[in-house]
Structure formats: C-alpha cells, structure tokens
C-alpha cells in the first residue's frame, strides 16, 4: 500500500476541476497549470525512485483486497511512462501559453489538457481492465474536446471521423471485456493472468486476445487500423497535435505491451507472430507515407506510425533484450515526437504554412530553431549520441538473437527512410534562398523554443546517460518478462 501511486492521477484531476471554476481568468489558469504539473512531475520522479528501490508499488482503493476492488499498480514500466508523459505534457502546455490563442484559452483549454493527462496517467497505472476502459474514455473524451476546440471547418470534418472510429473501438473494447469476463469471471489483470495460467490459454482465449489487439491497435494506430490517424492529427493546432502524438497512441501501445506480456503470453506462436508481422508492415507504411508528402505535419504524423511499428516489434521478440529495447524506444519516442511537433509548431508560427515548398532559408534568422530541429531529426533516426540509438540497437540485438534477419533489416532500412523524410524538411525549409523577409514573418518564436530545448536535452540525456537510465529500463523489462512478479505484488499470495 502506497498512496503515492494515485498522485499522478489525482493532482491533474483536482487541477482540472479547479480550472473549470475560473474560465475567464487565464493568468491564474496558467499559474495553476504550471504548479500542478510541477507537482505531478515531482510526484512521478519520487514514484520512479520508490519503485526502483522497493519493487512494484500497489494501492488498493478503498482497502478492498484484489481481485474484489480496483487496484492501482505502479511497476517500473508504468512509472517510467508516467514520468515521461508528465514531462512531455508539461512542455506542450508551456508551448501553448504563447501559441494557442485567446479563443481556445477562453473555452477551458487548460482544463481539458489536465483531464487528458488524468486519463493517460490512469491508463498507465491501473491494474483493472474495466478501469482501463474508463480511463481510456476519460482520455478520449478530453481529446474529442481538444481536437474540435476552435471549431474551424477542417477540425469539424476530421473530428467527426476521429469520434466515430473511437466510438467503434470503445464498443469493441466493451465486447472484448464481456467475452473475457464470461470466460474467466474476473477483470483484475493479475487475477485474469493467474486464472488463464491455471486453465491454459484455450483457443477462445486466444481469439479474445486478438480482439484486444484490434481494439488497442485502433487506439495505437498499427497497420491496418491506422487509417484515421493522418487526417485527425492534422486538424488541430500544433500544441494539441504534439500532446496527441506523444501520448495518445502510446497509451494503446502500452496496453498491448501490458496484456500480451501479463495475460496472453501462452500462445506466442500465434499472437506474437501476428504482432510481429503487423509491426513490420506498420513500419513500412509509416516510412512510405513519410517520404511521400511535402507537408511538415503529415511527414511527422507518418513518423508516429513508423515509431508505433518499431515499438510493437519489441513484443514479438519476447526476450528481455527485446522488451528493454521496446521500452527504451517508447520513452525516447514520446520525448522526441513532442520535441519535433513543438519545433514544427514554431516553424508554422513563423511562416504560416505547412508546405515545405513554400518555405526556405529559415536558418538565417532562426539558427537556434534550425539546429534544434536538426538534432531532433538525428535523434529520431537513431544517430549514436542521441536517444533513438539505444532503443533501436537493443531491438536489433534482440531480433538478431531470435534470427529475425528480415525484420531487423526492414527496421534498419526504415531508419534511413525516416532520416530522409525529416532531412527533407530540414534541408528545404532551413536552407535554400529565403522566402520570407523579416517583415513578412507571420509571428515571433519568442517563448516557443525553450519547451523543446527541455525535450531535446532530455533526449540527449537518454542517449548520453544510457548507463544511468538502463538499470531502470532493465528492471521494467524484467517485470514484463516474468508475470509472476506482477501477480505476486498485486495478489500477495
């Protein structure tokens, strides 16, 4: 029992409720948001440290023993993602202070952001499948509000599609939960896991597992369920796309990791091979999309799809190295996608367009922005001193140990395509002759660059300080490898 576990959910929730009470006082809203996000960051840091020292932390809500009550579980995997998620959303909120505009701030923008963070943190920390559904809905409803906030034509058009896809996937989630409850009679993750381990994973359980894969694949954007993602993520402004790109799809990926390492791990030759095959196609589709477009936002969005594929590949390796690589890449990708979208947001503020062909020569007046973007591109592709390298090298090593030569080849080849796609942005937008003179620029980057400085610094730390980070990641991978650690921590048999 440790009340610390609930703080990353509780602080944003209380803040969001407070922010609802003061809709017109934007200064105060900003102050409260910063205070609460600082508090959440500190709480998550303490949580990570606590989990590292004492093992898995659980909180039985209302002191009901699991499996009868809801239990919150912070293992290292969840704690690391909570910490990264809070930091990334913190920087996105700092970015939106200068960028999001009065129209949206006046209509509960900061409250919706806090609700979104509540949902994401809850989804990471919960130990109950139905509770996971509820936190998914908390997260999705705030994302519906954020995606349509402002009400421009493209936002209205795209949010209809986004809403429809997510309503269908939520209904499928309920159906999957119904089947699972009918089969094992419980919804506590640890209890479901031990029940399935006792009775053996029958064919019907494997079918339910694949239904869960479809549900979380729709949330996470894996092939062939990624079709809604490019349009929907293009509609809202950059500050919102950054928080979506960094957090929302990653929650789906996290859930896939959680259920396929904890619950449905008995038939890897079926489920894990399907995941592996889908992952490899996802990587290719994302890379093809990324090199096809001449639109900054589109390119970055397709890079989300590629990254989801790379992370998913970690599950199909199913060794400790593979999981460690997947987790490392997941944490890295949350940070670097946040950074890239925020930097692209600053570029959009200057030029007023997303079209690469209409930009050029930005490096002359914005050298800091330019070189930061360059660093972020290198980190995304996985160039050694930066964070993307460690995750990919672990994945490649794990894949080679399992003799997945084609998969590893495709993954490494996709890094080249990813590098080409972002370098296309860098070379064309920052070099060539100048398109806009000083007076023609649509806005200033004042205050827009420092949030991404934080994220780039974090990415450099993840790369250079790999020796410091690796024990944490290794501990997370160890828990994923051996579900009995998790089950014993929750059920305390």
């Amino acid at each position, binding site marked *: 029992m440790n009340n610390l576990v609930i703080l990353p959910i509780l602080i944003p929730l209380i803040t969001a409720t407070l922010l609802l009470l003061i809709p017109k006082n934007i200064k105060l809203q900003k102050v409260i948001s910063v205070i609460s996000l600082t508090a959440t960051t500190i709480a998550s840091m303490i949580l990570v440290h606590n989990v590292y020292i004492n093992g898995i932390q659980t909180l039985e809500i209302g002191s009901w023993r699991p499996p009868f009550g809801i239990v919150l579980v912070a293992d290292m995997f969840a704690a690391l993602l909570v910490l990264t998620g809070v930091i990334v959303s913190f920087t996105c909120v700092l970015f939106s202070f200068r960028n999001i505009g009065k129209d949206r701030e006046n209509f509960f923008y900061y409250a919706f952001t806090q609700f979104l963070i509540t949902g994401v943190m809850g989804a990471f920390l919960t130990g109950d499948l139905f509770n996971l559904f509820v936190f998914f809905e908390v997260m999705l409803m705030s994302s519906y509000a954020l995606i349509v906030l402002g009400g421009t034509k*493209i936002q209205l*058009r795209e949010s209809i599609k986004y*809403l*429809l896809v997510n*309503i269908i996937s939520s209904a499928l989630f309920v159906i999957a939960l*119904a089947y699972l409850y009918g089969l094992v009679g419980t919804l506590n993750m640890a209890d479901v896991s031990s029940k399935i381990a006792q009775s053996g994973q029958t064919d019907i359980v494997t079918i339910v597992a694949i239904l869960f894969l479809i549900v979380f694949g729709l949330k996470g954007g894996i092939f062939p369920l990624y079709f809604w993602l490019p349009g929907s993520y293009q509609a809202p402004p950059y500050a919102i796309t950054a928080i979506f790109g960094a957090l929302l799809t990653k929650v789906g990926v996290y859930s896939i990791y959680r259920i396929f390492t904890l619950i449905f791990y008995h038939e890897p030759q079926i489920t894990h091979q399907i995941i592996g095959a889908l992952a490899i196609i996802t990587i290719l589709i994302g890379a093809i999309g990324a090199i096809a477009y001449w639109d900054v936002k589109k390119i970055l969005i397709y890079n989300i799809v590629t990254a989801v594929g790379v992370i998913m590949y970690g599950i199909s390796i199913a060794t400790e190295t593979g999981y460690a690589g997947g987790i490392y890449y997941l944490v890295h990708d949350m940070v670097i996608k946040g950074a890239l979208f925020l930097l692209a947001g600053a570029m959009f503020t200057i030029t007023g367009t*997303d079209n690469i062909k209409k930009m050029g020569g930005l490096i002359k007046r914005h050298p800091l922005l330019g070189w930061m973007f360059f660093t972020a591109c290198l980190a995304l592709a996985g160039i050694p001193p930066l964070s993307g390298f460690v995750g990919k090298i672990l994945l490649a090593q794990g894949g080679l140990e399992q003799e997945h030569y084609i998969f590893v080849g495709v993954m490494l080849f996709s890094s080249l395509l990813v590098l080409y796609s972002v370098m296309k942005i860098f070379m064309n937008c920052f070099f060539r002759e100048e398109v806009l003179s000083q007076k023609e620029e649509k806005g200033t980057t004042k205050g827009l660059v420092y949030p991404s400085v934080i994220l780039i610094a974090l990415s450099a730390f993840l790369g250079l300080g790999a020796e410091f980070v690796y024990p944490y990641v290794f501990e997370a991978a160890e828990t994923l490898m051996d579900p009995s650690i998790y089950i014993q921590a929750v059920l305390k048999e």
Partner: protein
Amino acid sequence: MEIIMTIVAGVLIACATYLILSKSILRIIVGTGLLAHGAHLLLLTMGGLKRGMAPLLGQEAEAYTDPLPQALILTAIVISFGVTSFFLVLAYRAYQELKTDDMDKLRGNENHE
C-alpha cells in the same frame, strides 16, 4: 436464454455495422447507438443469465444475479450517453458550418479552408 440474447446482440451489431457504413451522419449516429446497445446486451449475457433475485440484500433470497456486469453496464451506458450527446452536437455544428450531412462530401485530407 443466452443463445437467444447472443443472437439478438448479433442482429443489433449487424444493423449497427450497416448503418455506420451509410452516407448520412444521422444514420451513423443511430448506428453507434445500436452498437452500444449490442455491446451492453452482450456484457449482460456473458455474465450469465441464471435465475436469481435482483442484487438487493433486502430480498434475502438464496441466489442473486451477478451484480458486477450490471455495474459495468451502468458505467458503459453513461459513458456512451456522454459521447453520443457530444457526437450529436458535433454533427449539428458540422451541419451548420459545412452545410452538408453527406459523408461523401466530407472526404479528403487536404487542408482546403
């Protein structure tokens, strides 16, 4: 009894799929409503439809029905109610702004304002 209810849920979900694939937004929203009904009915059925009293301790019966699926359905109903009302208002707003309820005319990914 479970077999009948499963077939009913299947019919509901089949109708929902048909409606969601149609052109008009309102038909799609009706489809999502039916989909939610199908999912909730399935949740109740999968919990088991054995005979027993309503789960109230005052009934002092020998057997009660399973209270857990009922609580889950109650939660799922309010969630889908919230989402449906948001969807309806969104469809109304989109109709005012875009002057159409035809999904074919809402196609495309280009940012034409």
